């Protein structure tokens, strides 16, 4: 069998192009950092970067979870309200004097259980992920409202690693986030569970034909999202110090934004958590830099919206051009 490829005399090797394709997001990030270093005083200080890390740590874990289900060609728009519920329970137990390790365990279990509700409805009830999680998001909001009962819960960090604490200027939550992303990246690439997520996200029916346990794997992914939300909830408590009626609601859209800006395909089966981390860093640094630049507050949204659109346009369009040259005709 013969394939026709017409080699161009001065084309860079396909390997280089592939490399470049994957380096686009890092390049954008570097450009962003350079820009703000010049334009915004105080941006590149250790203290500021640590702040950014601390303020985005809970979001990062949510985004990691959302990545898993987006890889499955699913979605979870309930992560924000879910975080609120777990945060309330965690904070309340902690304030009531429960030993911190136990609070951590219970939060993770509770998150996992809430995730299992989503997973059960999606897998067992065969409801599409978007309907399921739109519905449970609304339910979680109400649950938190009822639990909260007009009383804010004030609580400090449950354990230092889940609060704003730093060791030698390095925020401890940053390490937690890195560890979680590292493990997830490893799982996605090197464990069968991870490979199954990709296969299902590409074609669930096809995966089923090849003996991939589609239901079980999908269910596990939603549970895992919940467990990550459980950890994120405690980070939220440690950071914000108070749980109110709408805690966490604001985090859903940014979490999804981080995933898509990172370049994980919303169609499923393509992307990964490290890309999400890049996307998150891009957005978080952008929001921070814009404030430090002294942009009038109301203009923030304009700049952030425009920058995200431009960045994605650049990323997608360049990648597409490169793909063509690599020979991935479509």
């Amino acid at each position, binding site marked *: *069998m*013969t394939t026709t490829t017409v080699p161009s005399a001065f084309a860079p090797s396909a390997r280089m192009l592939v490399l470049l394709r994957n380096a686009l997001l890092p390049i954008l990030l570097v450009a962003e950092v350079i820009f703000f270093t010049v334009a915004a005083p105080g941006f590149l200080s250790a203290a500021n970067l640590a702040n950014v890390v601390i303020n985005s740590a809970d979001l990062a874990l949510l985004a990691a979870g959302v990545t898993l289900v987006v890889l499955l060609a699913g979605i979870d728009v309930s992560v924000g309200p879910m975080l609120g519920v777990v945060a309330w329970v965690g904070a309340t137990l902690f304030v009531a004097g429960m030993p911190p390790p136990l609070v951590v365990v219970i939060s993770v279990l509770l998150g996992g259980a809430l995730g299992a509700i989503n997973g059960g409805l999606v897998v067992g009830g065969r409801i599409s992920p978007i309907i399921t999680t739109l519905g449970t998001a609304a339910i979680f909001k109400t649950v938190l409202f009822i639990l909260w009962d007009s009383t804010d819960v004030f609580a400090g960090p449950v354990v230092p690693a889940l609060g704003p604490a730093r060791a030698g200027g390095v925020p401890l939550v940053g390490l937690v986030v890195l560890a979680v992303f590292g493990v997830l990246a490893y799982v996605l690439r*090197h464990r*069968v569970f991870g490979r199954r997520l990709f296969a299902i996200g*590409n*074609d669930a029916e096809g995966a089923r034909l090849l003996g991939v*346990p589609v239901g079980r794997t999908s269910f596990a992914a939603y549970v895992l999202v919940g467990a990550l939300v459980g950890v994120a909830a405690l980070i939220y408590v440690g950071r914000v110090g108070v749980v109110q009626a709408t805690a966490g609601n604001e985090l859903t859209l940014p979490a999804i934004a981080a995933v898509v800006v990172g370049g994980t395909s919303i169609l499923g089966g393509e992307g990964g958590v490290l890309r999400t981390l890049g996307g998150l860093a891009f957005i978080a640094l952008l929001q921070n830099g814009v404030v430090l630049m002294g942009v009038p507050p109301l203009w923030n949204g304009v700049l952030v919206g425009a920058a995200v659109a431009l960045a994605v346009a650049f990323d997608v369009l360049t990648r597409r051009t490169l793909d063509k040259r690599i020979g*991935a005709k479509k």
Partner: protein
Amino acid sequence: MTTRSDVRPILSVSGLSKSFGATAAVTDVGFTLGAGERLAVLGENGAGKSTLIKIVAGVYPPDGGEMVLDGAPHRPASPGTALAGGVSVVYQEPSFFPRLSVLENLYVGREPRDRAGQVDWRRMRGRGEELFRRLDVPVELLTRRMDALSLAEQQLALIARAVDVEAKVLILDEPTSILTDAEVRRLFLIVQRLSEAGVGVLYITHRFEELEHVADRFIVLKDGRLAGDLPASEADHDRILEMMSGRPVNAAISRSPARPGRVMLETSGLTVPGAVSDVDLTVRGGEVVGLYGLVGAGRTELALTVFGVLRPSAGTMRVDGEPHTPRGPRDAMARGIAYLPEDRKTLGIFPGMDTLSNITAVKLPELLGRLGVIRRAEERELATSWIDRLRIKAPSPAFPVTGLSGGHQQKTLFARQLATEPKILILDEPTRGIDVATKTDIQQRLVEVARDGTAVLVVSSDLPELLAVSDRVYVMREGRMAAELSGDDLTEDAVLRATMGVHR
């Protein structure tokens, strides 16, 4: 060739039945497949072949019946358990993972692992390369994304995946419908080797000429029931045809001599980067022109360029004498060109929609009243007439197209193009998956359409078909026009020589 009478049965089924609502797809079917035996499954479109093998593969639970696999009862709860039990399948509608690499596609669900349970990428890669080398498929393909492959390449990858599984039973559902001779022959070799190793092979095909190469025995299905079970040596085409349709069928088409008219389509120096270089071609009204070549020769791209999907980088096209520079399919259609794509799953059908609107999709502008309102009675009439004419097996025009068998989906698309009464008709693998009797019908219709003045260009990997319908044949090789054959020069041998680049 192995003999069969003495071998132990590896798969035996009896009394299998399966209905979809009111449609009885498979009724009371039984047969036995011996270890190392190659069994062909024949039947008209919609006879229940795919349904039968899907029951064996665990996709559908049977409504009734028994299966025994290698001495043990076979009641697969899912395709996964069937696969684990040793049933490996290449389905008729290719199912793969578009955004994964070919290598990953090969090992989904059975990734090689190291002792720590990690996916062993190096071993995977090694095994993939070895597999492709063994099957004579270019190893470079392994790193490409699956959706970047041509349909035929995808099919090869899927076959590779199926044969790599250590299976007891290998099932191939029309694997050759878009492969050309060379690939087909390689596939036969693989099948033969596996059968020698004791694997039972179930092989579905509409190409009778393949029978002697791939089958020791064949069964025939008619309307879901078993209509015959014979050794391959007794394969007599007329008799098989009669078993399939229950009536005598004329397998040959009648072809009056062509009276070529004006040049309707002309390309000169046409070049599409990476696919087509410097191609000259003419098609006249009233003639059928065939286009042959190996997979990847650039035939599809040439057709897509004429149809306005691909943009040429050099060269010119003329339609009916006027320059033709389409900016998209709409322009091409406005010039009276119709194109039937080869990949019906992604380029052809509208999967969520009914058979009716799938048939009238292109014709729609002519069925509109004021304000763009569809004249529904007229539309239904049109669709029904085509359903009748091509004998599309659909319970009603409103039946979802994805509920039709593969061959009938293909007929639906065929109807879509014919309904437009084009001046230039380009068909890419038109009879893909269509049963013999209907195929003859369609071929006959093609010739008639041409004799009525239409310029017909047929891209087909089915050489006998191409020779049967074509007045002239072009052969493409690596993007270039390798030969133009007509009259007495148009022989199977000449076409194959041009294809391989062998000169007399």
